[in-house]
């Protein structure tokens, strides 16, 4: 088991699943509603926790960038489901991980789940990051935005043999999320706003971005909108392919309500939940 690098599934096996399934069109991926068993509830720090969810059945294909719609039970203050990215997957053990930030009532309720309880989710939803990437890849995450990037990094490593660079920004050292997971997947660069770890400041101020020896072929990013916009400008200036994963208020998550629109250059308002959450920056009116 020594060469298994995350969760308890093997990279080899992991790669296998994806290499076989890669050409599948997102639109053909069947969406499921399923009760997962809560395996683990791991509070990382005062803001973040990780939920480990176990399926009774073989998991379907799930791609990096996709998300799930979580049903919140036991709260009079929440009504709709909540969108959460897939943070990690172990296909062999049929386990899915979500990294959640306590933002309000719904996520607080999730943090109170106990192992053994069940969580109803609709998944897999949305598109994925472009998986036909080559060369040097930079994954930039801010706060909760690191969630889809771990899965993406692992995917790139195991199926494309790309070791990505991670540039991860947090407010301070205490909020850094599972560093060992990222470190075994790629080269990690950290910024903290208070300088308590890594480079002090925002991700956009990190020397990595101004190091001319690093010539990235693609940047994939997820985080606060201001951060992603700054990165989009950077990528445009440097002519680097860049994709962003948008956060958005969702009514349904499956393309039915038209509440989650983002304005695009080519088609005007499109659904973030079905045409996204990942968008090439060229498509957005940013």
């Amino acid at each position, binding site marked *: 088991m020594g060469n298994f690098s995350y969760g308890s599934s093997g990279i080899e096996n992991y790669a296998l699943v994806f290499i076989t399934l890669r050409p599948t069109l997102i639109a053909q991926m069947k969406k499921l*509603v399923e009760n997962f068993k809560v395996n683990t509830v791991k509070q990382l720090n005062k803001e973040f926790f990780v939920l480990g969810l176990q399926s009774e059945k073989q998991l379907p294909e799930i791609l990096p960038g996709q998300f799930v719609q979580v049903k919140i039970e036991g709260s009079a203050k929440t009504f709709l489901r909540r969108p959460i990215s897939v943070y990690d997957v172990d296909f062999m053990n049929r386990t899915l991980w979500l990294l959640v930030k306590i933002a309000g009532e719904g996520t607080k309720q999730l943090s109170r789940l106990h192992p053994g309880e069940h969580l109803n989710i609709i998944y897999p939803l949305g598109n994925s990051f472009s998986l036909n990437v080559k060369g040097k890849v930079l994954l930039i995450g801010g706060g909760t935005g690191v969630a889809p990037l771990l899965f993406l990094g692992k995917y790139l490593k195991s199926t494309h043999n790309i070791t990505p660079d991670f540039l991860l920004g947090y407010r301070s050292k205490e909020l850094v999320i599972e560093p060992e997971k990222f470190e075994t997947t790629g080269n990690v660069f950290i910024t903290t706003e208070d300088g308590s770890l890594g480079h002090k400041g925002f991700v956009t101020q990190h020397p990595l971005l101004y190091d001319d020896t690093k010539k990235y072929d693609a940047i994939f990013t997820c985080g606060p909108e201001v951060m992603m916009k700054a990165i989009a400008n950077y990528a445009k200036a440097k002519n680097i392919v860049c994709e962003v994963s948008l956060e958005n208020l969702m009514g349904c998550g499956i*393309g039915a309500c038209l509440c989650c629109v983002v*304005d695009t250059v080519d088609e005007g308002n499109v659904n973030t939940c079905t045409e996204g959450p990942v968008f090439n920056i060229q498509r957005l009116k940013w």
Partner: protein
Amino acid sequence: MVNLTTNIGNLELKNPVMTASGTFGFGTEYLDFIDLSLLGGIVVKGITPKPRQGNPYPRMAETASGMLNAVGLQNKGVDYFIEHIYPEISHYGTEIIVNINGGSVEEYCEVAEKLNELDKIRAIELNISCPNVKQGGMLFGTHCPSAMAVTKAVRGAFSKTLIVKLSPNVTSIAEFAKAVEDNGADSISLINTLLGMAIDAKTRRPLLSTVTGGLSGPAIKPVALRMVWQVYNSVKIPVIGMGGIMNATDAIEFILAGASAIQIGTANFINPAVSVEIVNGIKTYLEQNKLESVAQLIGALEC
């Protein structure tokens, strides 16, 4: 065997459960979750003569037991519907009812006339109650002479089953119901959303780009039930009830209040299989109560 069929004008539905416009896309979005042919009908997203981009983001806000939306009838227009969507969805094995909208009587008629040509579209739902558009929409639904005029005109343009969907944002829902009945409606559906608003106390801004929006979900169920009951008691044409239906018990309450059929809206977002579950739930209720048909339940409230 219980008889689940119900009649809306000339239209016989295999069961009283439909999905509500704007909450079920064109049905396609739910193919992964349910067998659409098990439904009584699908009311598709509101269609306008020309494509519409809808309102800017943000378009929704969660509220206590409900949600506000301000989608604003985003759609690709009636021609796109006829050319691209209709061929795909007309073989679902359930009634496809098109929800139509316009900024003027002429616009409504334009859409109705074009849909009249489609074989598989045997009913339309005339939406005079959308609170999220500047022109048309709720204006028609809150001004009785306008409601009458648009119903009459669309009646002239559409020869099959005409359902008129009323706005709850009025003083007397019965007045509107009678007005559209007199002007040729075959059926009345209600309620559309209640006009509401939400504010973020932190930023001191409205949560919707349009400031106000339409309230749906269980929060509005008591108002919806009351209006269905009032309308049932004032017209002769069949009533289609909706507003906050989350399960079969809710659906049965609407039928007892006088609905010949019901529509499921917001509940689809939380449980995409809920519509079929409700079909089964109604069946079970009839069986357990030793009733033979849905017809026996319609308006069977004892009071």
